[in-house]
């Protein structure tokens, strides 16, 4: 039933909105259900059997996702606490930097981590100089290291959001009542973490559950293969579509089970910037030292690998082989198509959800459905469907763009929908009372509140697409590589100088495309009046 709280009901929704929403829903259904059906059909349940290596891949997938989530979140707690209660030059820059790994191409991060922790990296060289034995980054430890590199900052930002939601009055009350560390933990930090940590663990676990590129570069072998990697290996090494489909089915089941198990948790929204508000009172003494150590350690952990990517890449940027530039063009094409699709689907689903709040949970659910089937699962299904009719290589770019857009859609909806709903709640009735039509309402009321999260979402989608090394590896043949794929080949062929230059190029491309879209669409951050 329409209600007075939903003034948008009083206007007729533009046909274009429903058209976009319907097209998005159909595409997502076709993508997810089509791929899953193909996988289910090809896997021949009951006929195919899980081999010991497949069980090992399943165990490793669960183990690395669990450990990655635990380590990332446990380490994030002191870092978030230190960032919440300290103010220092560069504080805001460091908080912004915490968002960078999310848009960082996996292979760029891996290049940086190899430069620090690899066989010839800084740490092993230093160990060698003092006569200690070096360690290998390959295997579970390397996979965990890379996952913590990506997810420690994410978990820190999520917990920092939790701190920012603690009412300033509670922090002042704690100061007036003389809370010591234990009371602070019991009455302020503990209850806040109880709300935030389960969601943070869930997000990191879900992200790591579908780990492919990290496992491809730092894992592998019978003891460090994820299900996603096993799917790829079944394709590439054995061309065993039945086994790939069975693995994809298990991966999809795992994703579904995880989503159902975590359904009761409140997953955090996508934070853009900010997180810079009233902090708990800074304590003195030992806590000042521990806060300082936490901040310096996390800054070094994030900055040193990235700095090494830049330093090692600069000398080789000008002499990159021509294939790298061709691959760059391919990546840009994929990203452009992916962003257009993402923009249309986000607008269609978000606006339709706003117009019909009854249908909103369903529309949002369809938008989030990509979380269920991983890129490799969808890729496997699409490959099975396409293979009898057309060379999969010919579909490499459009399929990659569509899958990338579908994968970025959950993040885009999490960023855009709350902003849209707030704008409608705040100004919907005013708009109705002024007699604004749907387009005037969109232009004057919704767009100004929408453009920043929308710009952020599209920037994120473009950066993720440019840096993606996922479904493309199933489809692309020689000559059709994207930049991440080309970088992977250079690394695999030990062409370290070319790889260093390509890694820097990919880093610059991802960051600049993110910043460009965020600024171009999102506009400048509005300036607020002082207190």
């Amino acid at each position, binding site marked *: 039933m329409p209600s007075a709280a939903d003034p948008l009901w009083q206007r007729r929704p533009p046909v274009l909105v429903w058209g976009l929403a319907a097209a998005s829903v159909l595409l997502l259904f076709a993508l997810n259900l089509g791929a899953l059906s193909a996988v289910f059909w090809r896997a021949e349940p009951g006929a195919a059997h899980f081999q010991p290596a497949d069980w090992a891949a399943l165990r490793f997938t669960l183990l690395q996702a669990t450990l990655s989530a635990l380590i990332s979140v446990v380490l994030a707690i002191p870092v978030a606490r230190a960032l919440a209660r300290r103010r220092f030059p560069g504080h805001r820059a460091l908080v912004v930097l915490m968002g960078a790994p999310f848009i960082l191409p996996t292979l760029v991060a891996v290049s940086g981590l190899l430069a620090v922790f690899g066989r010839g990296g800084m740490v092993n060289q230093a160990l060698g100089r003092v006569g200690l034995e070096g360690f290998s980054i390959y295997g579970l430890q390397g996979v965990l290291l890379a996952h913590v590199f990506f997810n420690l900052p994410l978990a820190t930002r999520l917990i920092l959001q939790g701190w920012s939601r603690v009412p300033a*009055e509670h922090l002042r009350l704690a*100061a007036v009542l003389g809370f010591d560390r234990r*009371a602070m933990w019991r009455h302020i930090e503990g209850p806040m973490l109880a709300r935030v940590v389960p969601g943070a663990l869930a997000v990191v676990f879900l992200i790591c559950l579908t780990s492919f590129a990290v496992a491809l570069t730092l894992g592998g072998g019978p003891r460090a293969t994820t299900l996603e990697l096993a799917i790829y290996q079944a394709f590439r090494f054995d061309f065993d579509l039945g086994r790939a489909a069975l693995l994809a089915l298990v991966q999809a089941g795992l994703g579904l089970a995880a989503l159902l198990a975590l359904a009761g948790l409140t997953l955090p929204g996508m934070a853009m910037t900010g997180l810079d508000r009233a902090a708990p009172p800074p304590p003195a003494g030992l806590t000042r030292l521990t806060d300082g150590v936490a901040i310096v350690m996390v800054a070094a952990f994030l900055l040193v690998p990235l700095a090494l990517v830049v330093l090692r890449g600069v000398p080789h940027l000008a002499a990159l082989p021509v294939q790298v530039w061709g691959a760059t063009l391919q990546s840009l094409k994929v990203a452009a198509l992916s962003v257009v699709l993402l923009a249309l689907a986000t607008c269609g689903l978000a606006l339709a959800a706003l117009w019909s709040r009854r249908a909103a949970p369903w529309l949002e659910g369809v938008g989030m459905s990509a979380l269920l089937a991983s890129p490799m699962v969808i890729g496997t299904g699409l490959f099975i469907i396409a293979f009898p009719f057309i060379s999969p290589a010919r579909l490499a770019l459009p399929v990659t763009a569509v899958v990338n857009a579908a994968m970025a859609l959950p993040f885009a909806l999490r960023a855009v929908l709350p902003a849209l709903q707030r704008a409608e709640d705040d100004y919907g009735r005013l708009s109705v009372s002024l007699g604004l039509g749907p387009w005037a309402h969109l232009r004057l009321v919704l767009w100004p509140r929408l453009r920043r999260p929308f710009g952020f979402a599209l920037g994120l989608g473009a950066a993720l697409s440019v840096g993606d090394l996922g479904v493309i590896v199933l489809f692309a043949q020689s000559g059709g590589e994207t930049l991440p794929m080309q970088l992977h080949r250079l690394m695999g062929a030990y062409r370290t100088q070319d790889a260093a230059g390509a890694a820097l190029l990919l880093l610059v491309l991802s960051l600049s495309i993110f910043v460009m879209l965020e600024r171009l669409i999102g506009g400048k951050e509005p300036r607020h009046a*002082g207190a």
Partner: protein
Amino acid sequence: MLELEDLLIVQDDFRLSASLRIEVGAQVAVIGPSGAGKSTLLGAIAGFVPLTRGAIRWQGVRIDALPPAQRPLSILFQDNNLLPHLSIFDNVALGIDPSLRLNAGQRAQVETALARTGLAELANRRPGVLSGGQISRAGLARVLLRGRPLILLDEPFAALGPALKREMLDLVARIAREQGATLLMITHDPADALHICPQTVVVADGVASPPEPTEALLQDPPPTLAAYLGTR
């Protein structure tokens, strides 16, 4: 006596200065336009806002370098005075011991404070199920329990209806009188000031003026206050 001596607070473009004295046991309203710096003034006294210059003294002793917990005061905010995960009993008991490890005597003190504020029956409830008036009473019970000689009220009753607000004002005035405490209360409503505060500090144009008799001040307000009150 509370003394603010040559006080200056600078935050970006905002400046507030104050040089004033408030007698022990006085009940003083703080009134002025929005954004003038009323909460900043109370925040500085409580220890949340750093001073750019000047000193704050209580009974002749400088307190501006002390952390908030060591200052001789209790404060109530407009909102969020209670922690949502604790019972009313525990929220009040925080005023004695934040670890909530109370002995029998301390528990009796909490129960007395709850009884005096009419909350004895609600001791085990969480704040989420209480009305606005009951939440205000719980905050006041903690103020009562702490027994600090200076009570700062940052509009804690602003969201209450007129009758309930008056009841709370009477309760807080009674608590302050019984404890011999000095009361500083921010308000936007001249009627609140007239009701329990014989003196008023006007905060306007970057200056917190020394306290003046409320009745006379409201009868013949200075131009800024008159403009704010809409009487001129």
